[in-house]
C-alpha cells in the first residue's frame, strides 16, 4: 500500500446527525456528511451559518450536543497527540505572535508539533518559499500585510505535512494571483493524498472544490460535487441559444426536442433550454433551427454562476 493510499482513507471525516446548541439555540441542526480522503472538500455557507462550529467539532474543540463526529474513525474530543499530529487547523482569526518574525512564529509552531530543530529549518524554508514568504521571513508578523499574514497562517498548517487540514476561509484577503498559488498548493496536497477541508463563503472558490457541502442556518442543504449540485438545482444541463429572432414555431420545435425538460425564453433573440444531456441536444437544436431558416449566432452549454446555484438551493430548501 502506497503512502498516498494510506493517507486517502475512505471517509476521513464522518458527521452523523450532529446538533450543537448554545444556550438552547441550535447552531447546527441534525447535520450529517462524510468526507473521503485525498480531496479538497468545501463547506460553504453564509457568515453565521454554522461552518466554523462544525469545523471546531471536527478538530475536537467543541463537542456535539447530539450526534457523533468521527475523524480518522476517532471521536475528536478524545484525540491523543498522535492523532493531532495528523491534523492541521487554520482558524479565521490570527493566533500568531505579532512581535515575532515570520521565521520565529514558524519555529514556535513547528516546536509545538514536535518537529526537531534540525528538520525545522529545512521545512520552514520550503514552506515559506512555496508561499512566497521567504523574503518576509525576518519581518514581524504584526508588520505583515493581511494577505501575507494569511499565507503565514497557512504555512503553519503546512509545516508538519498533515493528513487532514481544516482551513477556515483560506483565500480571505488574498489577491487573485496569490489565490492561484494557494490553490496550487492545495492541489499538490490532494495529489499527495492529503485531505483539505476548507470553509468559504466565496462561491467562486467553492466551485473549485472536489466536493461541497452547503450549510445555511445550521442545516445542511445539499452535498456533492459542484457539477452535480448545479445539475440538481437546474434539473439538468443548460443550453443557451441566440439568434436574430426566434418565432413561435421555433419555440415549439425546440421544446419538442428529445431530452428537453424546460425552456426559458429570455426574449425574442435568446432561449435557455434545460436538457438531460447537453452534448446530444445542442447539435440537434442548431440543426433544427438551421432547417427552419433561423441562423443561430450563439450555441453554448451554459453554466450559471455558483452563487445563483447556492441561492436556488437555499430557496428550494
Amino acid at each position, binding site marked *: 500500500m502506497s503512502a498516498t493510499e494510506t493517507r486517502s482513507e475512505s471517509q476521513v471525516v464522518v458527521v452523523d446527525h450532529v446538533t450543537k446548541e448554545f444556550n438552547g439555540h441550535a447552531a447546527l441542526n441534525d447535520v450529517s456528511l462524510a468526507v473521503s480522503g485525498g480531496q479538497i472538500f468545501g463547506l460553504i455557507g453564509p457568515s453565521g451559518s454554522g461552518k466554523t462550529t462544525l469545523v471546531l467539532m471536527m*478538530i*475536537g*474543540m*467543541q*463537542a456535539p450536543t447530539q450526534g457523533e463526529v468521527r475523524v480518522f474513525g476517532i471521536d*475528536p*474530543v478524545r484525540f491523543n*497527540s*498522535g*492523532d*493531532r*499530529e495528523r*491534523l492541521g*487547523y487554520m*482558524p479565521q*482569526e*490570527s*493566533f*500568531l*505572535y*505579532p*512581535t*515575532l*518574525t515570520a521565521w*520565529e512564529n514558524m*519555529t*514556535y*509552531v*513547528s*516546536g*509545538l*508539533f*514536535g*518537529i*526537531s*530543530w534540525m528538520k525545522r529549518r529545512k521545512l520552514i524554508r520550503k514552506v515559506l518559499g512555496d508561499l512566497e514568504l521567504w523574503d518576509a521571513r525576518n519581518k514581524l508578523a504584526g508588520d505583515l500585510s493581511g494577505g501575507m499574514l494569511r499565507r503565514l497562517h497557512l504555512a*503553519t498548517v503546512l509545516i508538519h505535512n498533515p493528513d487532514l487540514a481544516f482551513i477556515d476561509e483560506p483565500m480571505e484577503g488574498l489577491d487573485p494571483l496569490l489565490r492561484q498559488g494557494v490553490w496550487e498548493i492545495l492541489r499538490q496536497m490532494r495529489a499527495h493524498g492529503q485531505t483539505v477541508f476548507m470553509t468559504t463563503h466565496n462561491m467562486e472558490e467553492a466551485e473549485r472544490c472536489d466536493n461541497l457541502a452547503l450549510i445555511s442556518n445550521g442545516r445542511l442543504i445539499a452535498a456533492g460535487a459542484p457539477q452535480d449540485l448545479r445539475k440538481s438545482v437546474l434539473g439538468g444541463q443548460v443550453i443557451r441559444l441566440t439568434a436574430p429572432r426566434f418565432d413561435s414555431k421555433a419555440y415549439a420545435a425546440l421544446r419538442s426536442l428529445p431530452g428537453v425538460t424546460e425552456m426559458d425564453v429570455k426574449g425574442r433573440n435568446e432561449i435557455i433550454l434545460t436538457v438531460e444531456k447537453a452534448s446530444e441536444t445542442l447539435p440537434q437544436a442548431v440543426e433544427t433551427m438551421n432547417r427552419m431558416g433561423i441562423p443561430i449566432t450563439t450555441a453554448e452549454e451554459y453554466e450559471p454562476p455558483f452563487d445563483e446555484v447556492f441561492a436556488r438551493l437555499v430557496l428550494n430548501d
Partner: protein
Amino acid sequence: MIKSIFRTLAFTSNWRALVWRQPSMLLSMIAGPFLVLFLFGIGNTIYEPRPKTIVVNQSQGSQSEFQVTPEDLSNYLEVVEVTSDGDHALAELRARRIRLIMVIPPNPEQIIQSGKRAIIRVFVNEIDPVSLAFAQIDVRAQMAVVNSKIGERQIESLKGPLGNLGGILNRAQPLLVAVGMPQSDINNARQSIDTIESVPSDVLASPVDATVENITPLEPTVITYFVPAAIALIIQHLAVTLAGLSMIRARLLGTTRLWQTAPIRLGEILAGNYISYAILIVVVSIVLVLALIWALGLPVLGSFTLLWTSILLLIFASLGYGFFISMVAKNEQTAAQMAMIILLASLFLGGFLRSLEAIIPPVRVVSYLLPATYEGQILQELMLRGGQGDVTHYLALAVIGVVGIVASFLLLGRELKPS
C-alpha cells in the same frame, strides 16, 4: 519522549526571541528594581534625627537644684527654643515646624519637696505611629537623663554638709556610744558619708549603666537588613506579574486555540511556560543580586548554593501564584491588580516592614501563604547571619510551588477542554 522535549521547549524559543527583541524590557526588569534598592540603600538611615523641641519654662529665675534647665534636655532632643509662651509653642507644633513641646512645671522643687514627682508635660503632633514611638523613646531617655542630673545636683549639694557631718561624727563617737548607739550603726553611717564624699556625684546619681553588644557577625544597617527582603519581594512580584499576564496574553492572541489543536499536552504547555519564565527571572535575579552585592556591598555570609536554591524555589512558588492568577483573571487589568494585591500583602504582612511576631496569629495565616515571607527570612539568615535558613521555609516555598502548579494544571485543563 524526544517530541515531548521539542514541544515543551517551543515556548523557550518563543520567549527568547521576544526578550531578545526587547532588550529594554530586560533592562528595565533589572535596572528598575536595582535603582530603587540602590537609592533606598544609600538614602536611608535607621535612626530618626533628634526631634526639634520647644521648652516652655514656667519657672524661669529659680535657682533650685530641682530646676530643669534646657541643657538637661539636649541629649536626645534638639531644643530650638526656650520660652514661657505656651501658645506660641503650640502654634509651632501645629505648623509642624517642631515635633515636641516640653512644658516644665513652675516651681518643681516645691512639688518634689512635697513628696510628689514633678510632671513635665510633653506635646506631640504625630500621625505616624513609628515616629510617635520614636518620640516616646526619645522623651523617656531624656527623662532618665534629667532625673540623673537632678540627682547629681542634689548629691553635689549634699557633699559639703555631709563632710562636716562626718567630722562631727568622728568627734562625737564616744558620746554616741555612751548614749547607747551601737558601734556598727556609727560605722555604717561613716561608711555612707565616706562613699558619698568619695564617689563622683554623677556615678551616685546613675550608679548603673548598660552597654549593648551585638553578637551577629555584622553591624546592622538599613541596607543589610532591608535589601535581602526587598530582593525577595521584587523577584516574587516579577514572577507573579509576568506569569499572571502570560495565559491572558495567549488567550488574547488566540494561541490557546493553537494549543488545543496541536499535539502538545497539557503538562508540556505548563512545563514550557514555567521553564521559559523561570529562565527569564533567574537571569534577572542573578544580575540583580550580583549587582546589589557589588554596588551596595551587600554581604553573603552563608552559602551561595543555598542562596540560589532558595531563589529558585521562590521563583517556582511565585510562578505558581502567577499562573493561577492568569487562569482566573479575565483580562490584563484584573491580573495586574491581583499581582499588586499580592505585592501589598507581602509588603505589609510578609515580615518586611514589621516582624511576623508583631502580626496577630489569624492575620499571620496570610503571611504564611506568601512566598516572600519565607524567602525574606531565608535571605536575611543566609546573607546576614551566615546561617542556612530554616529548612521549613524552603519546604514551604516548595509546597506553595507544587500547589500552584497543580492548581494551574487543573484550571488550564478546564480552559482547554472541549466546550
